[in-house]
């Protein structure tokens, strides 16, 4: 971490530095950084005849994430003979790598190598008593100036003195964003990758209060419920991948739609989930919070993984990660397909992600990354519960087999982070091309209203055929500096975010009988811009008190070209009747007008954000946080020169966190009370096929979370209780779960037997989810959901065999439940159903997946 300062030369100080880098330190870092631990003695054979005194060569070592030494710098070059020998010896050393939140990272440490003088045979001077013996590879740090055990040959000692601990730890890698309190969850995936997950979106469950549903199909973005928010498919949660935005501004299905399926789960190192708008770096859509995926690959070498599973599931994955390079240098590609459980759930997708992280000198790193992804799928959509109860349809059936979609995402990004003096500079550029087609039918045959200008018709079907194409260019950057004031380190960061989106969005209705579009509802071409700037400070008037926060302002600019501005006319031209055309070129009285119209507007939003941290006191840190966030609106709401009606959120919370690293592992426990208010919440409209603006809502609740990580066990558990209610009536916000409990467990151990001299390594994973009965409209409650997912894997040398079982208990559950009006008539002449009724999307039954992987090379 570039901002770490030398604070001492003893192991105690080094440990203190590590703790300072951990969550809740005086530096207010949320992350736990464990320095690298040497596994080899810091001694070397004499290159020639031994001297009668020790010779010490001070070094700065660069330790890779795999624990090997990649570079040796001589901080005080002296005799070339010893320097050469020291460098050669140091390059062979091995370390337990530095850990940032449990994830191995490259680091730089100060160390020294000693050529130890032989002990004199006659001892003219008093000799200190020998220390107790230590294990041969004890990681127990000792002071660098500790004496070797007398009477031994240090050059040949097979049981040497404990290795010197680093006097300074500089983790080589990107500076993490400063902590924003107890709701700032930095969650390394680590061993919990063993817990079965269908896709990378499900990694979000590692954060508290997350519940995912999906009624749109395997290729459709998951609907995310986060801490009392119905964040829909990303409209209320800012999603980024290594800071590259995922939310799609101008997406007609939902402004901010975030499809995370392009992320290859095996390439995710960890997540930062900030539950609330408390960080000035958070931008548009950070209403419920934000998530940033950190991509990388710890498994170095070339890996091939083949998976076969239930319902015709097949997946091939290849990854590569050259040994000796950063954990952030990787590549991976996958192709997968499945018939899907039940009707109309087949899916195919493929994707590739690659990144190279390089260094430009000792203080600068850069990354270049690329992503490609495409999918196609069918969707079962939602079923009426009464249809299933009557036996008209099965639990895993579909009401409209024409539902499904396609999607693609191609992006390139590059960034650079550099330290220049007291400044830390970061700059990122990205370009994204995204395409999406979605066919959904929630309402059956209900919405095809008869217009006077149209030929008389029956209900032709409500199937929506939506297509969105979006090109995004943008960048972000910041500069951070620090200085000493009041005897403590103070920080200031200034930054910006900018993106522009060129979006085309078309929505039509498809006739069920013919499959052809009969009506164009929306046809927009939009040029959107979002420019945000912020200032962020960290004031530390006292060693145990940190005020971190600032203010952010975003400018949203809309230029919307509505290609279908007129869809009805009260008095059409008798000479040129418009007929059934959707986009009309006449107005009242039949007067000509062009069918399109352009509207533009702009608005700004100022958002203060602050976090107050107290501590740590005995590893306990208290925090108070306040923040305001914003969600821009759908371009379809834009009116010329009318300020865009933002949805604004105000969030407050009080939390406490306990973070401690033991010899056997580390533990983080958090408790957070929160309250958030949204002035214009989005309410799902099944008739629109998307969410529309509604009234104000308030959420109050509590979150508890714990993570325990050791070599054997990795446990992540969380509980969230929340009440979400409308401001005007006090009634509950529908669909939002008020109780979410999640546990992820991974066990790792070498098996107690050897095969051909090699002990196989076994691991188990278990994920448990409980979601309480969600409030539904009309005073109803959904069913509870309880699922278990498990896995078992055995690794032998280069091979790994893994069995995953999802929904172990094979519970037939309704993943999503909604109450709304639909009409799927049993026969052509049946009277329509017009009263709201229960609908649901079936959760998957028990499924099995068997994977075999092989890794060549690597460490």
């Amino acid at each position, binding site marked *: 971490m570039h901002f770490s300062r030398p604070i001492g030369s003893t192991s105690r100080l080094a440990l203190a530095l590590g703790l300072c880098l951990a969550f809740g330190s005086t530096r207010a870092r949320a992350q736990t950084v464990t320095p690298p631990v040497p596994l080899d003695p810091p001694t070397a054979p004499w290159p020639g005849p031994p001297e009668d005194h020790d010779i010490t060569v001070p070094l700065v070592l660069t330790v890779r994430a795999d624990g090997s030494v990649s570079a040796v710098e001589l901080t005080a070059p002296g005799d070339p003979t010893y320097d050469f020998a020291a460098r050669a010896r140091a390059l062979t050393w091995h370390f337990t790598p530095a850990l940032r939140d449990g994830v191995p990272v490259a680091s730089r440490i100060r160390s020294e190598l000693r050529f130890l003088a032989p002990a004199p045979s006659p001892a003219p001077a008093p000799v200190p008593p020998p220390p107790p013996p230590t294990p041969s590879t004890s990681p127990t740090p000792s002071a660098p100036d500790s004496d070797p055990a007398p009477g031994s040959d240090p050059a040949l000692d097979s049981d040497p003195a404990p290795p010197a601990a680093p006097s300074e730890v500089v983790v080589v890698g990107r500076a993490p964003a400063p902590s924003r309190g107890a709701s700032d969850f930095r969650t390394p995936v680590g061993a919990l990758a063993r817990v079965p997950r269908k896709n990378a979106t499900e990694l979000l469950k590692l954060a508290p209060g997350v519940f995912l549903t999906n009624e749109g199909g395997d290729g459709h973005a998951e609907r995310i419920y986060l801490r009392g928010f119905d964040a829909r498919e990303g409209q209320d949660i800012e999603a980024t991948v290594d800071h590259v935005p995922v939310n799609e501004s101008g997406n007609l299905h939902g402004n901010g739609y975030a499809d995370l399926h392009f992320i290859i789960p095996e390439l995710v190192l960890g997540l930062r989930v900030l539950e609330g708008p408390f960080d000035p770096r958070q931008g548009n859509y950070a209403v419920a919070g934000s998530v940033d995926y950190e991509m990388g690959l710890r498994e170095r070498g070339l890996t091939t993984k083949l998976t076969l599973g239930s319902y015709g599931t097949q997946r091939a994955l290849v990854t590569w990660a050259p040994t000796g390079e950063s954990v952030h240098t990787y590549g991976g590609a996958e192709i997968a397909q499945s018939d899907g459980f039940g009707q109309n759930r087949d899916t195919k997708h493929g994707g590739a992600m690659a990144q190279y992280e390089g260094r430009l000198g000792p203080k600068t790193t850069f990354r270049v990354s690329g992503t490609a992804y495409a999918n196609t799928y069918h969707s079962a959509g939602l079923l009426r519960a009464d249809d299933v109860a009557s036996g008209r349809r099965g639990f895993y059936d579909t009401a409209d087999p024409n539902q499904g979609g396609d999607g693609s995402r191609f992006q390139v990004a590059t960034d650079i982070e550099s330290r220049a003096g007291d400044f830390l500079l970061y700059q990122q550029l990205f370009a994204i091309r995204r395409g999406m087609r979605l066919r959904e039918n929630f309402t059956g045959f209900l919405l095809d209203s008869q217009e006077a200008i149209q030929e008389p018709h029956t209900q032709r079907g409500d199937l929506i055929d939506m297509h969105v194409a979006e090109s995004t260019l943008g960048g972000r950057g910041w500069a951070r500096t620090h200085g000493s004031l009041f005897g403590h380190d103070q920080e200031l960061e200034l930054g910006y975010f900018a993106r522009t989106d060129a979006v085309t969005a078309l929505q039509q209705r498809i006739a069920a009988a013919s499959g052809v579009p009969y009506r164009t509802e929306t046809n927009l071409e939009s040029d959107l811009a979002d420019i945000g700037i912020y200032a962020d400070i960290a004031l530390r008037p006292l060693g145990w008190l940190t005020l971190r926060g600032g203010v952010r302002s975003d400018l949203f600019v809309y230029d919307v070209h509505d290609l279908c501005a007129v869809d009805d006319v009260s008095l059409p031209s008798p000479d040129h009747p418009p007929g059934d055309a959707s986009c009309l070129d006449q107005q009242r009285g039949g007067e000509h007008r062009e069918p399109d119209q352009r509207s533009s507007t702009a608005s700004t939003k100022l958002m203060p954000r602050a976090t107050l941290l107290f501590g740590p006191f005995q590893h306990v840190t208290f925090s108070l946080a306040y923040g305001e966030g914003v969600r821009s609106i759908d371009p379809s709401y834009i009116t010329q020169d009318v300020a865009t009606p933002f949805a604004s959120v105000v969030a407050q919370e009080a939390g406490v966190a306990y973070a401690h690293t033991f010899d056997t592992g580390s533990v983080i426990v958090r*408790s957070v009370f929160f309250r958030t208010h949204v002035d214009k919440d989005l309410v799902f409209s099944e008739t629109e096929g998307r969410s529309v603006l509604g009234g104000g809502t308030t959420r109050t609740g509590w979150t508890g979370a714990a993570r325990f990580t050791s070599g054997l066990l990795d446990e992540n558990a969380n509980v969230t209780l929340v*009440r979400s209610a409308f401001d005007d009536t006090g009634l509950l916000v529908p669909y939002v779960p*008020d109780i979410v409990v999640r546990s992820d467990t991974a066990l790792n151990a070498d098996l107690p037997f050897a095969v051909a001299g090699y002990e196989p390594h076994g691991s188990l994973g278990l994920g448990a989810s409980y979601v309480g009965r969600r409030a539904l409209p009309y005073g109803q*409650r959904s069913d509870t959901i309880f699922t278990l997912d498990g896995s078992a894997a055995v690794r032998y040398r280069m091979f790994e065999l893994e069995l995953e079982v999802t929904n172990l208990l094979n519970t037939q559950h309704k993943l999503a439940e909604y109450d709304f009006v639909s009409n799927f008539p049993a026969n052509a002449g049946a009277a329509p159903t*017009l*009263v709201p009724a229960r609908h649901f999307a079936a959760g998957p039954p028990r499924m099995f997946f068997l994977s075999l992987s092989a890794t060549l090379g690597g460490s």
Partner: protein
Amino acid sequence: MTSAFHVTLASALLLTTGCVGTTGGDTFSFEAFGRGTGTGTADSPAVTGLGYTLALTRAKVHVGALYLNRVTPTSVSSDTTCTLPGVYVAEVPFALELDALSTERQPFPSLGQATADLAEAGEVWLTGGDVNDPSDSTIILDVAGLAERDGARFPFEGTLTIGENRLEPTPPELPGLKPICKERIVSPVPAHVTPERGLALVLSVDAARMFSNVEFSELAADANGLYHFDDDPSTATPASENLYIGLRAATGIYDFGFEP
């Protein structure tokens, strides 16, 4: 905050959030019935608005569906959509061949569905199939009886359908101005009822009041002296048209109520 404080608050939250509270309202199924009012029969003759004493011997109404809506529309003159703009609170989307002379409850074939919201408007769908399909020729009203006035006797019978025969001409530039569904849906029927769990919806039909403005003397008699209502608007007498108007009258004919 101490641990005890956290535990207390967490417990309180658990109690206050754990499946406590509601989104408001209720939704449930209910039984639905139709029945006549008992007036206009031989036992209880009715006097029409034109002074006829009416004794029906047959009055069957084909009810295609029933609906209740929260909102009474302020104006529907230019509306071409079949349904009301508000939120529907109750529905019985099943057909009943109703004997409007019987005061016995006659059940609809399946349960209706409702939300516990106040309804201000009702709809009676007089259709035998797709409400938008003009080709349906289901007999909606089948009546017979005797009307007397000033010693003149008018034994009558007639059937009415609502199909292509009821399509009205429209301007060529507005071909959808008068969809057939608007003919088939009697709406808005004044209603001020709130569905309640455990109660049954009862549709009362006063068939005699359909004849309020029927001038029986305008009807043509056959060789047997039986007067007939004409189902073809192009040839129908005003008496036949007034019966059709009476069939579709939103007030006075149909009444919604929830009863134990």
